[in-house]
């Protein structure tokens, strides 16, 4: 499947560029993008597809765009 992964500049140590295209075998779930990108799981607070947060074991469909967020923090 073709999956697009985006994140803010906070992730630039692990994500080369604003948008990365991945090919993942079917079936795959949302959190599988992390292993494919060598992205540290503990840096990710939530996953969103189309602006809505989804649990990390949500199945992916071809053409999905997954956005990564850090753990929400305040101050």
């Amino acid at each position: 499947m073709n999956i697009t992964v985006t994140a803010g500049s906070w992730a630039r140590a692990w994500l080369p560029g604003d948008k990365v295209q991945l090919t993942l075998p079917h079936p795959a779930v949302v959190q599988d993008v992390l292993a494919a990108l060598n992205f540290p799981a503990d840096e990710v607070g939530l996953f969103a597809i189309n602006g809505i947060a989804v649990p990390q074991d949500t199945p992916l469909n071809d053409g999905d765009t997954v956005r990564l967020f850090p753990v929400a923090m305040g101050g």
Partner: protein
Amino acid sequence: MLYEKFIRVLYIDMTAQTSRVEEREDLMPYLGGVGVGAKLLEENMRPDLPPLAPEQPIVLAMGALSTIFPVITKTAAMFISPLTGELGESYAGGRLAFAMQQAGYDALVITGRADQPYYLSIDETGVKFRDARPLWNTNRDDAGRYIRDNEPGARGKRSIIRIGQAGENEVAYACVTVDRYRHFGRLGLGAVFGSKLLKAVHISGERSLPVHDFKQYFGVFRQLYAKADQPGGVMSKYHDQGTPINIEALNAIGGLPTRNLQTTRVDDAETISGEAFAENDLVRKQACVGCPVGCIHIAQYRRAFNPGFDYETHGVSYDYELLFALGTFVELKERQDILALIHEVEVCGHDAMSAGVALGWACEMLDRGLINVEEHTLIPVKFGDVDSLRQALRYIASAENDFYRALGKGVKHAAEVYGGEDFAMQLGGNEMPGYHTGYGSVVGVVVSARHSHLCNAGYSIDQALQPGEHIDPAAVAKKLMTEELERCMLNSLVICLFARKIYDRDTVRKCFAAVGREMTDDELDEAARRIYATKMRIKRALGYDNSQVKIPKRFFETPTSYGQLNENTAKEIIDEFNKLVNEVSPV
């Protein structure tokens, strides 16, 4: 003081216009910051008198490790809060801790009341009382400039903290602005200043502070600097778009308080997201002294004041909490409108979060017809209408009529007078923060010492759960208490909590060792408990009882990102937390 075995306290009497210094060895176990501050508050406060009585103290305390290590930047302010009537605790960065260290004071205790407005000019030689009558009724920019001009020779060596009209008029959530872009925000320290006719404090110094063990100190400094400054490292999200990244994140999970918490999501979050602000409005960043991260995001607010392209421009610092309180909470959808409202809050000298929540309640009250324009709001204050919202802020600052005077005492008080308690979004008397994420965020604010999401990071606990996951009240309470205790210790150093991932126990012990003060984990635990127990004694002395807190209904009606909350479960968590409080601080 660094390398010394005492805490150096400067006592200032506004009534007699005198000051004295004490070197307190007995305060060393409280480390600094919130620890020393809490103890000094307990010693000097008058529980038998109202919060704004002249006898009540303002305590400012820098930390045990202030300025000398990266991101250990803050100062703690301790006072009796005119908003809640109990513990007042607030933090600010800027240059204050640096200036206190340069001047040679770990803590300031200010009591009394002047007979006319003054500002204090403090340095190594002592305290001068400067006539502030020309400054009374000026905003923080004019006051800052006047004081800078009046105090030559202190360039680059000073901090100026000051109040605006809100503080002068004793608005219960008036803030103290620190070095233009930072604040002692919550719980109304500005009103305490105003009640003493204290317009500002200018503190500066040039004190020599020889390093004792340069090799060890520099080694630790370099490691921490590298961690803090690393591109894409643990601090980079605070530097890049900063905390406004939360707009998108909280919207995605449905935890973003919107329209007086009627809902928790907005349409078009992308137009007011952290990225949108950064790409379109951000013009520069600044740092507190001693921090290479530079998380202060300053946007350009450009205001047309006349037809024919007449603009004035202002730098407005923005953070997530402001974008929620003065944005989604009052349904502003244009970035320049949100910046306009933030700027108004700054000019008035209000706490941004409390002011936004107060406006949200007022808009809904008018919307429902429970109050009216003629007798109460004077203008139609509406969600999404930036001009009426700005005017309302000015009316609160000037206590324009009975309604605005009541609103200036906090949304809890205003609702007691006018109704709408179910949707006056406060917890423990303090207006809510920008997270509606679960039991952690709601109960965490209720049970925490200063009713802040930052005491115990309840919202972090929520986000570790799956929506609807089973809640074990004792486990949640334990997590909240563990974090709350740890932060008592961290807030006595005083780290900026953004760096809490860097300042794990190993690192904290290394920093202490590098300045000749070996601390074991047990000693740090003990210090945390000692500090927490002091805060609890203060709260009890001021009449606070955790089990008597009423949580407004809407917290249980509007679903959180975790799911809909149940009042009984919340109560169970509060009860479990109170058991833990009694272990640390027996009644």
